[in-house]
């Protein structure tokens, strides 16, 4: 293994983390803006610097859109007093926010976000093109809940403790439905667990107009996966770990300053990651619908195609992030027992039934029409 390979791998990883983290950060701002627009408010629109205001028109637009809010918030988290409640185990207390953030950043390594064609060979833009990509993501994203449970346990306080318990119960319940809902998707795609192959399988057109996206073949799976994704990322209406209304702030009640910031970024990193994953699984990744109806089938070779495909992918991801925020300000939250009911008595049976029906249908199709 030569040094240039290592250097470029590290460079790619740093670029990827930087972009991913800034998207996650700006998701926070987007959340506040979308919330304000839905509630007919202007939202954060004052934070600015004199240098930025000096730019004629753009400066004012940037300020009104709250784009300077992110560094201001980050700076605030850095410089605030960092309180420790009494009688906490400091090691676990500090470890918790780190454990909450790391899984979101780890799962990002196997996420393909574009493709590049070099010398006629198309390879994915991805840090690690694992053959078990989806298993890796499921395994690591469920580790995120350990951060929340650890925070609830280490805080030495009743509200975080309740939040931690709820988080563990909720995540375990919805992980089952999530995994079950994904089985037919990968069966349909030919048994691969590689996310790049899955995206490749979704390129092309159905009947000459519709894209061959999984959401059209597997609508039930898509719905189940999306619901479970909301629960896994602790977003409203499944915000049991935090439950502002009954648990103060749930697991992060005792956290302040930068440790709270880490939890916060971790939550939004999970949202970003979840949106990107949904795009890969059900919305065809970077496949170019509806432009490919008009004959634009493939991305051009080289860097241009890579950038274009990554941009298309990001655009789709942003739409899904917006959907996450939009749902938050539309639906009221569930009660704890309603969440358990929905998870175990509705989603899981539907997921199993969906899996069985698709399995039988595919077996019949292959046996009698002899096509794989």
């Amino acid at each position, binding site marked *: 293994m030569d040094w240039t390979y290592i250097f470029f791998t590290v460079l790619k990883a740093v670029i990827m983390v930087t972009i991913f983290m800034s998207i996650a950060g700006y998701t926070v701002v987007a959340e506040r803006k*979308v919330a304000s*627009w*839905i*509630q*007919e*408010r*202007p939202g954060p629109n004052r934070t600015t610097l004199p240098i930025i205001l000096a730019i004629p028109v753009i400066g004012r637009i940037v300020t009104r859109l709250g784009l300077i809010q992110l560094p201001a918030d980050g700076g605030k988290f850095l410089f605030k007093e960092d309180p420790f409640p009494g009688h906490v185990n400091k090691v676990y207390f500090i470890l918790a926010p780190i454990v909450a953030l790391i899984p979101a950043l780890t799962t990002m390594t196997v996420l393909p976000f574009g493709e590049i064609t070099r010398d006629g060979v198309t390879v994915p833009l991805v840090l690690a093109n694992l053959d078990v990509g989806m298993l890796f993501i499921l395994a690591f994203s469920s580790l995120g809940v350990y951060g929340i449970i650890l925070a609830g346990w280490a805080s030495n306080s009743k509200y975080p403790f309740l939040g931690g318990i709820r988080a563990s119960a909720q995540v375990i319940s919805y992980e089952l439905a999530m995994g079950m809902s994904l089985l037919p998707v990968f069966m349909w795609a030919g048994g691969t667990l590689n996310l790049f192959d899955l995206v490749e399988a979704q390129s092309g057109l159905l009947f000459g107009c519709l894209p061959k996206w999984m959401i059209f073949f597997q609508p039930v799976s898509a*719905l189940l996966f999306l619901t479970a994704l909301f629960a896994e990322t602790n977003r409203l209406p499944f915000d049991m770990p935090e439950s502002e209304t009954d648990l103060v702030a749930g697991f992060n009640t005792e956290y302040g300053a930068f440790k709270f910031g880490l939890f916060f970024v971790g939550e939004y990193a999970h949202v970003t990651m979840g949106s990107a994953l949904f795009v890969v699984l059900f919305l065809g990744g970077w496949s170019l619908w509806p432009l490919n109806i008009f004959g634009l089938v493939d991305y051009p070779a080289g860097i241009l195609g890579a950038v274009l495909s990554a941009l298309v992918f990001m655009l789709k991801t942003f739409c899904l992030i917006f959907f996450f925020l*939009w*749902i938050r*300000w*539309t*639906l009221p939250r569930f009660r704890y027992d309603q969440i358990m009911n929905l998870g175990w008595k509705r989603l899981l049976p539907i997921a199993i039934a969906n899996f069985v029906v698709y399995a039988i249908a595919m077996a019949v199709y292959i046996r009698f029409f002899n096509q794989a």
Partner: protein
Amino acid sequence: MATKVVDRRPLSWAEKTYIPQILSGLRITFRKMFNPVVTLEYPEQRPTIPDNYRGVPTLVKDPHGREKCVSCQLCEFVCPPKAIRITPGSIDEASGNEHIEKAPKDFEINMLRCIYCGLCQEVCPEEAIVLQDIFSANGYTRQEMVYNKKKLYELGGTLPDKHFKWDKKKKASEQAPSH
């Protein structure tokens, strides 16, 4: 009493999945995004204050620039939180208003104590103390929040006065036959 029976149909199959309701909810919130913003951006834009608003109590002068307070101390007496403190003083003999006899030498209102009840305005026989439209009294120290006479007149300004009670009194006393 007429009883209105509310029609409670059993939910249809589609409604039991919640999806149509969620979609209609999403449509409503999406439409809201394009509605005009209703927020008043406070320091630049101010709300319109109604005429009978009870803001900071202030001292006012009449259209001739005469201070209306005669230092009767009724407001000091009535003030429930004891926010007002008046030091009575006499009026300069040469000012032409010497028949009014008294004016406050100092007039202090502690805005940290004031509860904006408006009793001082109600009790004032001279209409000299008025709760106007100022609602954001602030300062860095407690001492700063004790408004003195000068500050109170600055805030109060001049209000139109239809009565000119003391001018009429002066005129009447001049015209009246001496005993």
